[in-house]
C-alpha cells in the first residue's frame, strides 16, 4: 500500500478507532457479545494502521524519524507501542480484559499529542545519534513504566475482588495475583535502568550541546521534571531489589504511585510547555531554544534524508 494512502489521515481518525475499540471492550462488561472482541480488534487494527501511516507521513514531512520529529510525534510513538501491546495481548488471550486498561492510556497519549508542540526538537541539530538514543531509551523506559502502572492497577482490582469474595466475570478475566506481581516486578526492574540510561544520555546531550553552542539548560522544567520522576522510580527500584518481604500489593501500590506520578509529570510538562509557548505571556527557556533552533534546523533539513528510520 503506498504511503500516500495515509496522507489524509488525521490524529482524529485513529483516536476515534481506539475510542470505538474501548467502547466495545467496555460493552463486554455489561453484555456477553463474543463478536464484540473481534470488532474491537478490527477497530484497534484499523487505528494502528492509520497511526503507523500518520507517523510515516509526519516523518517524511519533517525529514526526521517520528521519535525525533516533535513532542507530538514522540507521544504518538509511545501510544503506538502501547497499541501494539494491546493488539498482541487481545489476540493471544480472548478472556483477558486488557483493552480496558491499555486503551485509556492510549487515548491519554493520543489526546495529549493534540496539546503538545509539533515543532521539531531543536537539539537534533547538535547530535542526531545521541538525541535518537536519548528519545528511544526514554520511550522504551516510559512504555515499561506504563506497563508497570497498568499491571499494578490490575493487581489492585484483582486483589480487591478476591478479598471481597466477588466472582470473576466471564469474558473479562484478569491474570492471577502471582502472575501480575511477577510481571510487575520485571516491568519496573527493566524499565528503570532503561530510563536511567535515557536520562544519562540526556545529560550527555546537554553537555555536548553546550560544547557545540546549542543551549540546553538543566533548569529546563522538562529536564527537571524528568529528573524528579527518575528519582521516584529509582527509589522504587532500589526498594524492590533490597526489600525481602515485600508483598505484591505493596509493590503494586508503589508502582502505581511512582509510575502514575511519572506519567502525570511527563504529559503535564509537555502540555504546559506548549501552553506558555502559545500564550506568549511567559517564554520558557525551552521555547526560546525552539525558536532559535528551528531556523537552524530548517536550513539543515535539505542535508538530511529520511528513509523510514534513523540513517
Amino acid at each position, binding site marked *: 500500500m503506498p504511503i500516500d494512502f495515509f496522507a489524509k489521515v488525521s490524529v482524529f481518525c485513529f483516536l476515534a478507532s481506539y475510542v470505538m475499540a474501548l467502547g466495545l471492550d467496555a460493552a463486554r462488561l455489561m453484555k456477553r457479545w463474543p463478536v464484540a472482541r473481534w470488532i474491537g480488534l478490527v477497530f484497534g487494527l484499523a487505528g494502528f494502521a492509520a497511526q503507523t501511516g500518520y507517523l510515516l507521513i509526519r516523518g517524511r514531512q519533517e525529514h526526521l524519524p517520528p521519535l525525533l520529529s516533535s513532542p507530538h510525534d514522540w507521544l504518538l510513538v509511545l501510544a503506538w507501542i502501547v497499541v501494539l501491546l494491546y493488539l498482541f495481548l487481545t489476540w493471544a488471550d480472548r478472556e483477558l480484559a486488557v483493552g480496558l486498561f491499555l486503551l485509556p492510556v492510549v487515548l491519554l497519549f493520543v489526546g495529549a499529542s493534540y496539546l503538545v508542540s509539533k515543532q521539531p526538537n531543536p537539539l537534533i541539530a547538535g547530535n542526531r545519534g545521541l538525541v535518537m538514543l536519548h528519545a528511544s531509551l526514554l520511550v522504551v523506559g516510559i512504555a515499561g513504566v506504563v506497563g508497570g502502572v497498568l499491571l499494578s492497577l490490575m493487581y489492585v482490582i484483582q486483589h480487591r475482588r478476591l478479598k471481597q469474595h466477588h466472582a470473576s466475570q466471564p469474558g473479562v478475566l484478569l491474570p*492471577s495475583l502471582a502472575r501480575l506481581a511477577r510481571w510487575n516486578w520485571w516491568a519496573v526492574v527493566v524499565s528503570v535502568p532503561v530510563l536511567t540510561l535515557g536520562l544519562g544520555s540526556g545529560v550527555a546531550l546537554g553537555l555536548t550541546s553546550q560544547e557545540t553552542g546549542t543551549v540546553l539548560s538543566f533548569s529546563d522544567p522538562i529536564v527537571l521534571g524528568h529528573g524528579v520522576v527518575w528519582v521516584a522510580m529509582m527509589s522504587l527500584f532500589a526498594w524492590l531489589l533490597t526489600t525481602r518481604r515485600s508483598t505484591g*500489593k505493596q509493590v503494586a501500590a508503589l508502582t502505581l504511585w511512582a509510575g502514575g506520578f511519572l506519567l502525570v509529570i511527563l504529559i503535564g510538562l509537555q502540555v504546559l510547555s506548549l501552553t506558555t509557548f502559545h500564550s506568549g505571556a511567559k517564554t520558557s527557556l525551552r521555547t526560546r531554544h525552539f525558536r532559535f533552533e528551528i531556523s537552524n534546523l530548517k536550513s539543515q533539513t535539505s542535508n538530511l534524508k529520511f528513509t523510514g528510520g534513523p540513517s
Partner: protein
Amino acid sequence: MNLQVVYCNHQSANLSIRERLAFAGDKLEAAYRELASRFRSSEFVVLSTCNRVEVYSAQESPDAAPTRKQIAEFVSEFHRLPLEEFSDELLAETGPDAVRHLFRVASSLDSMVLGEPQIVNQVKEAYRAAQDHNACGPLTHAMFQGAIRVSARVRSETRLAEGRVSIASVAVSDFGRGIFDRFDDKRVLILGAGEMAEETLRYLCEEGVRQVVVVNRSLAGAEKLAAQFASVGARPRSWEALDEELALADMIVSTTGASEPVVDVNRFREARRRSGEKPVFILDLGAPRDFAPAIADLDDNVFLYDIDALEETCDQNRKARYREIEKAQLIIDEEAERFMQDVYHMATGPIVKRLREQWHDVSRDELERLRSKLAHLSPADLDIVERGMERIVNKLLHPPLEALRHEAKSGTPQGLIDALKRLFHLRD
C-alpha cells in the same frame, strides 16, 4: 417418516429404576443386536448415562416404526424387569418433540445441573457407539449432528454454561486461580477428613496439586483420606503438627465439623510470623466455621473464604444460568424447526428428482426431433434452442417445486406428492 424417543430421566424415574434400565458396558452391544433383530428397518441411538436412559428411533416409513409400547417391551425383556415396575416412568416424544427433546438434552437444559458440560460428550459418545454398531442411518445422523451443533450454539450464544455451580469448583476456579498461577508447586493442608474435603481435594488434584497433607483429630481418619489420594503423594499427620503445617501451607481446606473455631487469630498470626507474608488461600468449609473470620484481616495475602461466601457465588452463577434458559430454548426451537423443515424437504427429494428427470427427458426428445428436422441450423443456433428449451422446462418446474418446498415447512407434503405422482404419472 417417524422420529421417536422413549426415555426415562432424573425427573421421571428415581435412581433405583434408572440404574436397572441402564445399558452400560457389554449390555449396549447386546441391546443394539436385539434392536436390529426386532426392528430391521429402523435406525437407533441409545443414550445411557447416570441421569437418563433414552432410546432414539427413526425410519423413513411410518408403518414400520416401533411404538412406545414395543420399545418398552424390549427394555423390559432385555433387562428382565417387569414392565409394570417402570412403565409409568417411561416417557415418549415423537416427531418435532423428539428432536426438540434431543436438542434440549445435548444443550444441557434437561440436566440435573443446568448447563453442565459433560452431557454433550455423552451424547457424542452414544452417537459414536451407535455408528460403531451400524445402528445409525440418515435420519439419526442428521439428528445427532444437529444436536451437537445446537449444543455448541447454545454454549456460545448464551451464558448457560458459564460460572461454576459447585462449592469446590467455585473455590478453586473462581478464587484459587485468581491468586495462584499454578497448583503443582503448592502445599495443600486438608484439615478434617469429611466428604467436602474429599470433593475439594479431588478437584484440586485435577488442577495439578502434588503436595497434600491431611491433618485430622483422629489419625486413622487422616490416613484413610490420604490413602485415597496416595497417587498425588497425600500423607497424614497427627493433630499436634497442625501449627507447623499452618505455617507451611499455601492452601488450607478445612472441614472439621468442630463446634468452635479450630484456628483463632492468635494461632494463625503465629503461623504467619513463621511463614512470612506469602499468599495463603483458606477454604473454610466447616459449619460452624473452623477459622475465626478476623483472620482474613491479618494481612493482604490472607484470602479466607467460608462456605457462605462460596455458596453466594454458586447461587449467583446458578441464577445467571436460569436466566439464560429462555434464550437457549429459543435457539433450540428455531433449530428444531429448521431441522424438521430439512427432514420434510428431504422426503420430497425423490419426487423432485423424478419430476425433473421426466421433464428433461421430454425436452431432450423434442430437441432431437428438431435437430433432424432443422438440419440447416448451425451448432450455435441449436445451442440457443437447447438453452431456450431448458429454460422453459425449469420455468414450468418452478411452481410445483415451490409448492412442494412451501408445503414441506409444516410436515411431509404427502398429499401433494401423491397428486404430483398421479398428475405426471411418476412411478416409485
